[in-house]
């Protein structure tokens, strides 16, 4: 049954690039950051939070706002709180924006006069235009998927593992969805779904996926029972 499904719907790897666009808006202190977070476009909020993971490696923070607050304003407590906001937890950018503002407002109530960033270290609000295109790689089964995932560009992993969470909603990624809905591999989908995107770089996520799928492919190849 699974074989028929596999033939019907292979996994088409896509990938994306982002073209950075300046909003020409900049903040030099926390009050200005707060006011601009309240008014900038949704694309800008998306870029500074969700697309942070496209940078390709795990850093001390999990979004650009936390990074700037921690590094340029040296407000470590607020940086920690902003970093703990999971952008994929929200139904839409509007809710995410509210969460960012709530954390900053609470902080400003206790510390109303935070320091200013040095000249040249202001926060620059950007947004992006995303271009999505086929990576020209297709996997028809788990074994092909395993080969592909080892060599695909990191931007493809970002698109299917991170960006999909916003596109599909509910914390679902494209890989788990394909395992579940097309291959009927619910356990594999669950194991993949359990990889925390916050805790790994894109390369770390690649390693985890390879490990999980490799284990499954090896197990499927093993001949069990006693041969006659």
């Amino acid at each position, binding site marked *: 049954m699974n074989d028929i499904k596999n033939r019907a719907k292979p996994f088409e790897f896509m990938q994306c690039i982002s073209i950075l666009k300046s909003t020409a808006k*900049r903040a030099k202190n926390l009050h200005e950051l707060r006011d601009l977070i309240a008014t900038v476009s949704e694309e800008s909020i998306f870029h500074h939070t969700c697309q942070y993971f496209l940078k390709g490696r795990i850093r001390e923070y999990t979004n650009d706002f936390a990074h700037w607050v921690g590094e340029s304003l040296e407000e470590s407590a607020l940086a920690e709180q902003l970093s703990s906001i999971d952008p994929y937890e929200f139904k839409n950018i509007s809710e995410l924006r509210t969460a960012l503002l709530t954390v900053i407002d609470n902080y400003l109530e206790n510390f109303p006069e935070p320091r200013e960033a040095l000249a040249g270290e202001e926060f620059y609000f950007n947004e992006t235009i995303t271009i999505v*295109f086929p990576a020209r790689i297709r996997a028809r089964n788990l074994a092909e998927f395993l080969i592909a995932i080892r060599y695909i560009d990191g931007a493809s992993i970002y698109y299917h593992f991170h960006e999909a969470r916003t596109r599909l909603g509910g914390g679902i990624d494209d890989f788990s969805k394909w395992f579940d809905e097309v291959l009927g591999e619910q356990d594999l989908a669950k194991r993949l779904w359990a990889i925390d995107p916050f805790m790994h770089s894109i390369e770390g996520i690649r390693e985890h996926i390879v490990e999980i799928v490799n284990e499954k492919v090896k197990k499927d190849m093993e001949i069990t029972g006693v041969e006659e």
Partner: protein
Amino acid sequence: MIAKYAGIAPKGDLILLQKLGEIFREKSFLHINSTRAGGGVAEILQRMIPILRDLGIDARWEIIEGDERFFDITKKIHNALQGNFESITEEMWQYHYEVNKRNAKKLNLEADAVLIHDPQPAPLIEFKVQDYSESDIAPWLWRCHIDVSNPVQEVCDYLRRYCEKYDAAIFSVSKFARAMSIDEFIIPPSIDPLSEKNRDLTEDEIRETLEKYKIPADRPIMLQVSRFDRFKDPIGVIKAYRIVKKYNDCILVLAGSPASDDPEGEIVLNEVREYASNDPDVHILLLPPFSDRDINALQRSATVVLQKSLKEGFGLTVSEAMWKGKPVIGGATGGIPLQIVHGFTGFLVHTSEGAAFRARQFLNNPEMVKKMGERGKEYIRNNFLITRQIRDYLSVWYAIKNNEKSVLEL
């Protein structure tokens, strides 16, 4: 030509370039700047135009011509945009416009997309061929390669009259973008991994350069490649070297090209020579133009590469060294922090003492150097190769044609 980048540039970039090449096949893409040779813009265009043509795009490169007076004025405009006080009179602006008008009569400005580089040819927008293409948008883009984060305001405002007539502007770094009424894209510059400055070299080629410049290969080399310019802080580099020298025997090489268009260059060079005070282990090299292979060899033979700038446009020498697997110690200014991820692909420093400390770490920890160098090379591969820059230019063109929707699927 593009096939040569397979296995070097990220696969996705090459796929997208091919796709965009199909979309813009036989469309004309005109680049205009003010010099055919010398400087980073000419260097990148020399490499970029053949690649665009190989993709099937009818890429052209034209230059505007001007006399000494014109280039004196544009040099002043350039300096003012970088924050040095210069007064540009109405008469000077008028001459800037008139020279562009004369060039507009000679040049064929008809193209499906036009990219004007830097302020010298910016007034050409006044001579845009209206309705060149009836069925399509033929965007005119202004590409600013210089650091305009802290300009002389009057000069910036005057230039804005031209800039805002373009369909969009492109800057290298977010903080260079100004509040304008047009869209502003951020596209960092890039290096070409196949150019003479960056291609792989043999051991013999590297040795040849060291012998040519009488640089001993028996001790580790600390290197800074840059013009002799106070903003590059060559004196600060010597200070750092002197601190390091107390702990590790090493050689310092300061390599730069003669700055014929920069009257201050010679003064700074003399200051540097005097400060080095005949230390036999400090090698101050005045490289002739077209010394790309020698620069390549020096970068490959160095153990510690510095770019200790105090102010910097982008600082592509950082990417050049990182592409060769060398982690770089760089001043935290301009585009350098975009290239160096502190503690991961190199170190950002603010003082000579900081540079010396990081240099000692490199000299005493080859494993760390190796690991950072490998990460740095990958970082450059993914972010600062010429294929990415061409991809971005074509993507901006495509985005403008598609009314800049936030997500575009090819």
